Every structure is written in C-alpha cells, then in structure tokens.
C-alpha cells in the first residue's frame, strides 16, 4: 500500500473510524448531542477529504478498488444524502426513548458499505459492499424495537434481502466460472471479442439482476418495499430510498456498462420488461394508497422503473442523465420523508394522508416543501424533477427507446394523480389534530431541499456541467 492508496481511500477510512470512535465515546460517556455532532463532523470530513483525492484520480488499487471521478461523484452524493438523513434523524430519534446513539454507528457502517459499492471494480468488493450496506440496514429498519411494525419490517427485509444476496452471489459465481475473473475491467476485455455471450454468463447476469432488482425495488422483486418503508423509521426509509438505491445503482451502472449488457438482446428485453412493469405496478399500486410512506414506496418503484431505462441507452450521456435523475430523486425523497419524520411524534407516525389534511393552512412552509417534493416527483416544471425527467426522456429518445418512453409518459400521468391526492388533502380544509413543532435543524434541512429543488428546476445548467465533467466512467 502506498501513500496514494491511503489517500485515495481516506473517505472510507474516516467512515470506518468514525463508528469505532463513537463506540468508544459511548462506552465512556453517553450523550446524544455529542454523538450527533461527531457524526456530522465525520461525514463532513469525509466529504472534504474527497477534495484532496481529486488530484490523484483515477487511481486503481488492484484488483478491488477503482477510485475515479465517477466513484468520487457518487460517494459525494451518498455522503451528502447521508448527512441530510442524519439531520432529519436528529429530531426523529430525539423524541424516542431508550438507546439511540448506536443508530449513528450503524448509519456509518451502512454508508461505508454504500461508498464501497461506488468504488467497486470487483465482485468481492461488490459483494462486501452490498452486504455491509444491507446488514446495517436490517438493524436500522428494526431500530425502533418497541414497535411491532419496525420488527416486522426488519425480518421481512432480512429474509428477502438475504435471498436476493444469495442470488447475486450465485450469479457472480456463474460469471466467474465462465471467464475466470471477478474484475469488471477484465470481464469487459473478455467479452469484447465474443460474438455471442455464453449461456452461463447470461444466466449469471440474470441471477445478478435478481439481486440488484431487489435492492432497487423493481418489479417483480418489489413486494418488500411498501412494508419496509412503512415499518422502518421515516429517516431510515429515506435512507433506503436514497443511499442504498443510489449506491447499488452506481455499481450496477459500472458493471452493466463494462459487460455492455445493453448489447445483448435478451438482457435488453428483460430490463425493458422490468422497467415497464415497475412503472405500471408501482404507479397503479399507489393511486389509492392512504399511507403516505407506502405511497412513496410505490412511487419509488415507479421511479426506479424510469431510471433503469437509461441503462439501455448505453451512452455516457445516458449515465449523466441517470445521475442527474438520481440526484433530484435523492433530494425530493429526502424532502418528502423529512416532512414525514418531522411531523411524526413518539406516539404517532405521520403516515396517513388524513393527517396531512389542511397542513397548508396550519404549517404553510412545511406543506410547501412537501408540495414541491411531490411536484418534483411528478415532474412538473420549476422543480428539479421536471428537468430530470426531461433529461431522461431526451436520452431515451436519442437511443430510440420509444415504447419505454411512452409507457413512462402514461405513467407520469397516473403518477400525477396520487401526488395530487396528497397535495389536495394538504390544501383542503384543516382538521383539528395537533402537529409537533419543528426544530431549526429540520427547517434548515427542508429549506435546503426546497431551494435545491427550485434551483435545479430553474437553473440546472451548472449541475449538468458538473456531471458532464466528473461523472464519467
């Protein structure tokens, strides 16, 4: 290991050290604020460290790591999202009884796993990253162990995620057996000269798709999503929706483009089918949903359906569109779950749409944040979601994916319906129920989210420039 190696791994080191330090601190002096402050600092430090890595990239630590602009970009997104989740968790956890400092430890390990996925260039790191992430998530989901629903969600996620991991692993094994390498770049070279991919390889990719499809909550591996989103604490749900999915997407894009999956017809068709099904099933399931967490879960299924269209474009621009989409999706999802977690109390999770009735007239700013998030999810102009969808459709059309684009259009309309339902109830006549007051931290986070949505919606040029510059494989 050289100095450069260590330098380029510094974010991971920080992320790995932080939970250890927290553990030590807790064992000496248990204080929620201290742990929280330290966590924030660590994440910020990790983000800052990225700036120092920039000069040395691309740097490969053979055979597992590949630290390049693409991975750093994703790590940045992941870390910022994690930071926002931490901010939102602060209030949410504060009102809980019992032990809550450990939450941040687990959050760090899972963020570590997610970040590892972004630099993975090898099945081993792929597997380890995804397992680190998932294993931490089991705990996070079941973190409110006094609640039935939290435990139920945890066990469901555990069983299903394990099965999907097993599939992923088996698929990796099959690919390894065909080409004798677990490194993406080696696989790429091996495949380049083949006219026809070996069946075993395609089979392997198919099984990996199961694992990845599960993590991204794509149909038909989506069934867990609503239950887990509902059962998990709201910040954790937002974490699953953003960090977990983003990281898996990062490694999947890299892997998929390395093996040029879009060139293979059967993979192409399977992914198209999954995409179309995800859009329709996700949106249709949402239209009558009364629980807002489940609704967002279904919406995330549909959104991931939109997103994986981009895999089939097979172009760098497609990746950029996907990243832009992911970023806006992260922001809006965190915003939406943020509102939920800020409005939740110890006794009552603010998850029924009924509880949002008349929110606008009681807490206008919160309602506006929620409205912007939902409009962004629906892809209405002046929100980031609109530009993101535009970008996605643009690249999809460039690649001639007409059927997928049209089913996306149809689904945008269906989707609009249930987003409007929530908005409508927020703007209708108020009911009597009381809402908790929102802390400054929560307000700042939401304000950040809203401003980002607006800025990206009206003036997205700079981010696109940024993505074009940095997010290249």
């Amino acid at each position: 290991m050289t100095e450069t190696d260590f330098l380029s791994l510094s974010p991971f080191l920080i992320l790995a050290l932080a939970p250890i330090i927290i553990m030590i601190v807790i064992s000496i002096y248990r204080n929620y604020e201290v742990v929280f402050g330290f966590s924030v600092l660590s994440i910020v430090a990790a983000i800052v460290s990225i700036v120092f890595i920039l000069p040395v990239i691309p740097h490969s630590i053979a055979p597992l790591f590949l630290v390049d602009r693409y991975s750093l970009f994703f790590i940045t997104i992941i870390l910022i999202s994690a930071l926002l989740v931490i901010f939102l968790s602060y209030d949410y956890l504060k009102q809980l009884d019992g032990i809550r400092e450990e939450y941040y430890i687990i959050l760090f390990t899972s963020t570590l796993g997610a970040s590892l996925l972004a630099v993975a260039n090898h099945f081993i790191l792929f597997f380890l990253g995804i397992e680190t992430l998932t294993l931490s998530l089991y705990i996070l989901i079941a973190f409110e162990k006094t609640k039935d629903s939290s435990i139920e969600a945890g066990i469901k996620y555990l069983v299903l995620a394990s099965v999907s991991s097993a599939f992923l692993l088996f698929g990796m094994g099959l690919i390894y057996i065909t080409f004798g390498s677990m490194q993406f770049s080696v696989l790429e070279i091996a495949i380049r000269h083949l006219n026809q991919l070996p069946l075993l390889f395609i089979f392997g990719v198919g099984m990996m798709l199961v694992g990845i499809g599960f993590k991204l909550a794509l149909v038909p591996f989506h069934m867990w999503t609503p239950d887990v989103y509902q059962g998990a604490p709201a910040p954790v749900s937002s974490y699953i929706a953003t960090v977990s999915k983003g990281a898996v997407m990062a490694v999947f894009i890299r892997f998929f483009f390395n093996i040029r999956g879009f060139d293979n017809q059967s993979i192409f068709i399977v992914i198209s089918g999954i995409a179309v099904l995800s859009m329709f099933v996700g949106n249709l399931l949402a239209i009558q949903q009364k629980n807002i967490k489940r609704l967002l879960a279904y919406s995330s299924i549909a959104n991931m359906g939109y997103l994986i269209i981009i895999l089939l474009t097979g172009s760098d621009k497609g990746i950029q569109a996907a990243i832009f989409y992911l970023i806006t999706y992260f922001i809006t999802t965190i915003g939406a779950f943020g509102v939920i977690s800020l409005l939740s109390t110890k006794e009552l999770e603010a998850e029924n749409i009924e509880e949002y009735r008349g929110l606008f007239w009681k807490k206008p700013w919160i309602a506006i944040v929620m409205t912007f998030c939902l409009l962004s999810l629906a892809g209405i102009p002046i929100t980031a979601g609109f530009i993101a969808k535009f970008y996605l459709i643009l690249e999809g059309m460039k690649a001639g994916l007409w059927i997928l684009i049209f089913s996306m259009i149809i689904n945008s309309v269906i989707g609009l319906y249930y987003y409007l339902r929530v908005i409508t109830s927020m703007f209708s006549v108020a009911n009597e129920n009381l809402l908790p007051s929102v802390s400054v931290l929560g307000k700042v986070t939401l304000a950040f989210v809203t401003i980002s949505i607006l800025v990206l919606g009206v003036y997205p040029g700079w981010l696109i420039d940024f993505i074009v510059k940095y997010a290249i494989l």
Partner: protein
Amino acid sequence: MKTLIALIPALPMISFLILVLFSGKLSRKVAGWIGAGSIGIAAVLTVIVSVDLISALPEIKSYQITLWQWMSVGNLSADISFRLDSLSLVFCFVITFVGFLIHSYSIGFMDKDEGIIRFFAYMNLFVSSMLILVLADNILLVYLGWEGVGLCSYLLIGFWYKEPENGTAARKAFIITRIGDTAMIIGIFILFLSFGTFNIQDIMHLASAKWVAGSSIATITAVLLLGGALGKSAQVPLQTWLPDAMAGPSPVSALIHAATMVTAGVYLIARTNVLFSLAPIVQGFIAGIGALTLLIAGFSALTQHDLKRILAYSTISQIGYMFLALGVGAYSAAIFHFMIHAFFKALLFLAAGVVILVLNEEHDIFKMGGLRKKMPAVFWTFLIGSASLSALPLVTAGFYSKDAILWFALSSTSGGVVLWIAGIVGAFLTALYSFRMIFIAFFGEAKTQPSFQAGYLMTIPLVVLAVFSLFGGFIELPASLGNFHLFSNLINQSLPVVGIKNVEHLEWLFQLISSLIALSGIYLAYLFYYKKPVFIDSFNHSKIHHFFEIGFGFDKVYDILIVRPVVWLAEIDKKDFIDQINISISNMALIGNEVLSIAQNGKLRWYLLTFAFGIAVILTYMMTK
C-alpha cells in the same frame, strides 16, 4: 344632404342609447316623447331627403355616404355605408312615418305599463335596425340590420316576459327566422366568394356580367337568399312563427309584424332582383310560394277566434301577394302593396290594440260584439282598414295596390292563369274574413263592456292611417282607371319594369271580376256572420275548420319532424357519452390498483413465492432465447 341620410338611422339609435343609459332617471312620459320624437324627426328628415332626391331624379339615382370602414381583411372590405335610392326611400318613408304614428300611439297605449322605457328603447332600436337594413349599401350591413330587427322582434314579442308563453313565442320567432337567416348568410358567402365584394350594386353588376341565367350557382344563391326572405316574411314553410308573435303588445304587432319587419323579405328580393332574374326557376318558385301562402293564410284567417291572430294570418296572406308580385317580376306592384299594406294593416292592428286594451285583454272576437256603438271612432277606422284590406273597389287604396298585383299575376310575361286564380280566391277570402271580423266584433249585441275610452293619443294615429288607407292608392292608378303612374315611375328608377304580355286591352275586365269577387266576399260575410245561417255552425265544428284553424297543421308537423327529434337528441346524451370513456379509463386504473393491491398482503412467504416466480420467468426467458 348626404349626412342627413346617416342621421335617419342614427336618430333612433341615439334615442335608444339615451333610453338605455338613463333608464333610471327618465320619467315615463319623457321617455315616450323621446322615443316617438326621434322617429318623428327621422320622418321629417326622410321627407326632406326624399324631396331632394326625387327632384334630382332621374339624373342622380341615389345618394351614398360612407361613415367608416367596418373591416378590411385581405380582399374583403366592408364599410358602414348607406345608399338611398327610390326603393329604400319608400321603405324609409313607411318605416319612419308609420313608425312615428305607432310610437305616438304607444305613448298612450303603454301608459300604464311599468316597462314603458324598455319598450321605447326596443322600439327605437328596432326602427334604427330596420332603417340600417333598408339603407345599407352592402349586403353585410343589410345582414346586420336584418339580425338587429330579428333581435328586436324577439325582445318585443317577449316584452311581457312574466308570461312564459310570451318568451316561448319570442324564441320560436327568433329561431325560425334564424334558420332562414343562416341560409341567407351562406348565400352571402357565395356572393362574396364569387365577386369579391359585399357591395350590393357591384354584386348586381358583376352577377349579370358573370353568371349565366339559369346556372346552378345563381339558382343556389337565389334559393339561399330566398330562405332568409321566407323566414323574415313568414312565408310557407317558415310562416308558423308569426301568429304566435302576436304575444307582443299591439303596437309591436303593428310596426314589426305587419308594417315593416315582415316585409324585409320583400325588400331583400327586390333589392337583389338581378340574382332572381338570373334564376328564373327560383323566381317562379317565389310566385308559387306567394300564391300558396296567401291561400293557406287566408283559410286560416277565416277560422281564427283571436282578433290579432286573424290579422296575423291576414298579414301572412298579404305578404303572399307581395311575393306573388315579386315572383312575376312586378316589383313596383309589390312595393306599392307593401306601402299600402303598411298603412291599413298598421291601422287594423292599432285599432285592434285599442279594442283589446279597452276590453281588458279580451282577444276573442266572439266575446266582443256590438262595439260599433261603444267606440265609434275605432269602428270607423277599423272599417276603413278592413275595406282597404278587402280591396273595396275604387274607394280604397287596397283596391289599387292589390289590383295591380292581380293584373300582373296574369299579364306579366312570367305570370299565368293559375296564379291569377289563386290571387282571386285569396281576394275573396280576404274580403270574407275581414268582414267576418267586422260583423262579429262590431255588430250584434255587446258581450263585454269597454272599461274606458281611448285617448286622442291613440285615436289620432288611427285617423291619419285611415286617411292614408283610403287615399294612398291614388298615387298609382291603372291604365284603365286614370293611368297615373307616380309611384311606379319612382320605383322603376331603381327596379326593373315588369314585362307585360299583349293583353293590355282586357285589363278592365279582370278589374271588374276582382271587384265583384271582393264585393261578393263582403256580402257572404254579411250572410254568414251577421245573418248566421245554420250550416256555418256545422262548418265551425267540422274537421276542416279545425285544420284551417291550426294553420294547416304546420306546427304539428314541425313539432314531430323537427322539435321533438331535437329535444330527443338533446335529452339522450345529456351526460356526454364521451365522458364515459374517461371514467372507464380511470376505472381500469382503479381495478388494476385493487388487483395489485391484493398481492401486497404482507405475507412474507407469498412475497417469496412471487420472487421465485419472477426469477423463474426471467431465467426461463433468458435460457430459451
């Protein structure tokens, strides 16, 4: 002098605006005098302009004035411009002069009515529109006036809006005339697209230059314009609205539904005579319609009970005469009859108005009786009107005007015996039903007592009109009786002269026949309705009587053929079936939601099963591919 022409329609319009804008601040009397006075001034102006124009004839045939450019789009241009020639002069004169008399009468007639200001506003608007109609230089402006008078007719028929029936009658009038108007506007389209102008004179010149007589385009255009004329002038088959239009106040019936508006069709055909001469079939058709209408309406008039309805059918019938004259190319005769008809029919309506007002809204002639003694002024003027209507030989104006038509129906190059016979039968019917009114309403014993006597405001116009009904005819005397052609010389400045077959020496014979027919009609009326023989009673209860009474069942037929299907059409799809498509789409989404939602049952093993199923499908697909 020219600017005065613009003032003629402008005065009533100004008065209308004053009445509308200051409706809250004017007293009832003042409003009436403003309304009537503006028309009076307009009448004076008309006379001044007339004298000027007539003295300039025949060197200058018309005065023309353009107020402003209405629109100019591409090659389309239309101005707000007026043109006064001898034809419009006659119309202007009748409109302003008779209009003034009727307005003055109305001050008395509407004295008690709460809506008197509204009434005069509408009336002024009507006069203004009517003047625009007859003065307009381009056909689009004619159409503006045409629709304007239609609107006023609608408003005035429904003037007493509290009775829903009045509204219905008004609506009927508007819709039926609108059907004709739509045909007319299509005709105007054809004219514009053929000649690139709306100017009537230009159109006429270009039409005679470009179109071949009897060509299909000329025929179609003529038919379409005729549609408008039929609607406005209540000719078969669009005549059914006029009897119902009697729901309006009597002055309205006198002015709009007897003297002026309903003759707009006559004006239109006379104005665009070149087109009709290019379409001889249509012109023959006009004569036929005129003959048919005058008979149908004559029979119907014979059986009515309502005083105003009798007069309404009589109006239809008399306009039938005018159409007959137009059809045979006797334009001056048609216009002459229009003028005389305006006098005596206005007189009759006004007199009837007095009767009805005085008898507290009693319309049924069989409940009147004996009015001769109670209201002598009304009786005598009514009698003069009826005599003029029945064309009592030599002494009444109606004789000269109707006789001219009958004569031309036979002697014109496009006339014929059939048309003449129809006219003669009509003349007989006219005399019969006119004196039926007289004998039933004014003779015999009184059945209803008059509540008060009409004031001078109402009786003076009656007297004036009676004078005109008697002596108005002497400006135009047939060859056999003095051969004085003041009127037709004037009219022929702007309209073609009728072509005559070589039968002129027999004119006196036919005049004699028609005179006898009229007299016999009066005598029979005396027999039937004064002496009251038994068989008249049985006739009154016969089916044929009923058939006549309902106007030959046109209303019923239209009800079945048009009204009910339209209502049915409106009713069947009230909720808009296309909406069901939306609903079914959203229902599909809801069903999809419910089906999928069943799968989200929270059971882990079920999730695993779908998981496994999904894998199986994907892997099987990949293997088989």
